[in-house]
């Protein structure tokens, strides 16, 4: 735990960060920018896992191991998504979700 900071404040921070990510996901039309908003959300989750583990039951390490797995999954997801985005750009020369409609019909 952090000296003088309650769990509520950390969870407020992560909630705000998560909803900033959701706002970005809703308003962006560029695929890379949407993926960046997703990274913000994943980060908020990982902080939440670590903070709740540290504040409520520091003897067990479940939440802290979960946050490691979250980072590994996020890395794999980002690598795949960026490969797909690059391939899409090669096919259509745009990564704007308004103009990419290959899978739509």
């Amino acid at each position, binding site marked *: *735990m*952090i000296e003088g900071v309650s*769990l*509520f*404040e950390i969870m*407020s*921070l992560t*909630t*705000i*960060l998560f*909803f*900033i*990510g959701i*706002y*970005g996901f*809703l*308003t962006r*039309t*560029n695929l*890379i*920018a949407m*993926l*960046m*908003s997703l*990274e*913000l959300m994943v*980060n908020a989750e*990982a*902080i939440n896992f*670590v903070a709740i583990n*540290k*504040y*409520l*039951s*520091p*003897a*067990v*390490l*479940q939440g*802290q*191991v979960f946050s*490691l*797995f979250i*980072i*590994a*999954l*996020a*890395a*794999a*997801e*980002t*690598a*795949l998504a*960026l*490969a797909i*985005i*690059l*391939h899409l*750009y090669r096919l259509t020369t745009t990564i704007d979700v*308004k103009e990419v409609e290959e899978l739509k019909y």
Partner: protein
Amino acid sequence: MFYLLSAIIIGFAVLSVTSSKLYRATMYLLFVLIAVSGLYFMLEYNFMGAVQLSVYAGGIMVLFIYAVMMTDKIGEPMRSISNKRKILPVVVTIGTAALAIYAIYSYQGIAATKEATVTTVEQIGSKLLTYEAGGFVLPFEVISILLLAAMIGAIVIAKAKKLVNQEKN
């Protein structure tokens, strides 16, 4: 110190989702990730802070920067939706965030500890590799297979131009 880090995280996160230039948004995201790793160091979880710095601020940001450089016309503002259509997302996200924070603060059943604990690398390592109850050896192995699959998949997708041509022939 915590409040300084929080201000950095929230400020740069807002800049990162509102900046109209994609490359700048990526740089703002980098600052957010570094501040988050500072938060892990403050929580006495040094290994996670190091992983955050090396994997996120190192690896994933390099991927993002390469992708931005390959797809974006740097310096030109991105196409964005009109201000009128941004009103509903702003209202919805602020309302839902306020509701969530209200729910967090109105919950009384939390008995937080007062002891500061340092998580060492040995603890994490033995937790990841133990077979006993509460061990994480199976997810650890599964995630290694997942990373291998993701690597092969990324290579295949990035090479897919040749494959597509062969299919057409």
